[in-house]
């Protein structure tokens, strides 16, 4: 490849990046909802901006700086700490201007841009690659994220809540450092769509709950053989919330959960998987180990009470 054409390739790539930044910038805003440093946000629906929940420190006197420079007031419609997403409503139905894409088209090694508007409220960008991809995963707070996306890109101060942009200028996710101990992660667009719609409709994400504290314990081989238990472990109940769903079903301190609807439980994740919003109100057949025998109890899944 001769010198001038290879130089052209670099220049061409550079322009592609700047074009992608410009295109997606039409959907990126700055948010004043905490002292000192503004955070970033994305216009996700007409009149609604999505942000990283951990950057929204107050519920009143929130203002948003739009791409054209105008500053407009906003109100908090709802937040979901489990996915670190929050939705702010704008007074005027600000139209959608950026294009959204599908994060499942990303591959490890793909160049991506992280866009934000902090500090000066002007557009800022950082360049990196998709570092690691995986399937659906649950955050430590029980939030369901459709795709594991880790980025080798700098999430600067104020960049949480900003856009993950592919080389075509499409917004494919929301960047945050608040999901996994300060690491640059992205919430894929599919998850943001789902959470935004629910927050706009209900103001919070309904989550199922049983009202117990539990811990995994290995089951002794002899007991498993005697009772014909297929799982290796169970979940010992270490606390029961008075009048919660488990309490009302007759679950006691010291019971060991071994199966739900016949399926053995290995860890808390297996239980949380049964507490998706669609299961609220449903009755689960819970098998507990009590005094060396298995007892089956019907437990009606409740809705997690809102923390004040």
């Amino acid at each position, binding site marked *: 490849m001769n010198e001038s054409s290879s*130089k052209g390739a670099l220049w061409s790539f550079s322009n592609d*990046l700047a074009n992608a930044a410009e295109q997606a910038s039409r959907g990126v805003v700055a948010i004043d909802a905490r002292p000192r440093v503004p955070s970033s946000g994305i216009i996700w629906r007409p009149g609604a901006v999505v942000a990283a929940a951990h950057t929204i420190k107050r519920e009143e006197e929130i203002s948003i700086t739009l791409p054209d420079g105008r500053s407009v007031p906003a109100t908090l419609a709802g937040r979901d700490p489990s996915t670190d997403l929050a939705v702010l409503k704008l007074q005027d139905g600000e139209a959608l201007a950026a294009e959204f894409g599908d994060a499942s088209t990303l591959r490890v090694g793909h160049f991506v841009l992280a866009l934000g508007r902090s500090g000066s409220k002007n557009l800022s960008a*950082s360049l990196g690659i998709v570092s690691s991809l995986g399937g659906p995963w649950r955050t430590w707070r029980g939030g369901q994220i459709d795709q594991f996306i880790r980025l080798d890109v700098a999430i600067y101060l104020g960049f949480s809540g900003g856009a993950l942009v592919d080389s075509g200028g499409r917004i494919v996710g929301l960047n945050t450092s608040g999901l996994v101990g300060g690491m640059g992660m992205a919430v894929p667009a599919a998850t943001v769509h789902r959470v935004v719609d629910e927050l706009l409709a209900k103001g919070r994400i309904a989550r199922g709950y049983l009202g117990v504290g539990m811990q995994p314990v290995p089951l002794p081989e002899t007991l498993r053989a005697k009772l014909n238990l297929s799982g290796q472990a169970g979940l010992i109940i270490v606390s029961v919330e008075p009048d919660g769903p488990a309490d009302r079903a007759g679950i006691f301190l010291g019971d060991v959960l071994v199966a739900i609807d016949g399926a053995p439980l290995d860890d808390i994740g297996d239980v949380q998987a049964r507490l998706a919003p669609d299961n609220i109100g449903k009755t689960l057949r819970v098998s507990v180990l009590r005094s060396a025998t298995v007892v089956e109890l019907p437990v009606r899944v409740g809705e997690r009470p809102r923390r004040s």
Partner: protein
Amino acid sequence: MASALAIAAEHLRRITVQVSGARRGGGSGVIWHPKGLIITNAHVASLRHPSVALWDGRSLRGSVVARDPGRDLAAVLVRAENLFAATVRPGNSLRVGELVLAIGSPWGFAGAAAIGVVHGLIPRTSDGTMQWVQADVRLAPGNSGGPLADAQGRVVAINSMVAGGLALAIATDEVERFLSESGVLNQPRAATRGEAA
């Protein structure tokens, strides 16, 4: 594209010099004019007669002819003719997201390159001309005074410091102002010389 990067880095190395400072100080500089004008940071040019090392290994004695600590710029003259000089691009044509390359001597590794993108642009409040370029590039102390260039190898700023993880560089517009105010050059900046051979 990997070869394009290697070629761009190679060009930039030829217009980058190492400037010695007091004790362990020093950093990099940019050859601004073929007749021996070097631009660097004021904080790099702490000696009145620093030693300037060229890419081809020559070491020349320099004289600081202008120094502006407020802008963190200094002009150093060396006795040489026909040096390879930088092609300069004004900062106000830069776009956020554009690729930028930094060349310098971070941690003493001469000619090391780093790549990133333009993170932000900070204009002067008085007239809106470009003053600072923020780059999402990993710099180390030896990069100070060296070039920040675009994907065509044109110098857009002089690396000055790291702030909040970002590289902060002085836009070439500011360098031009410094040169005209200090009277170092009677004529405008080094003429654009097209492709460096």
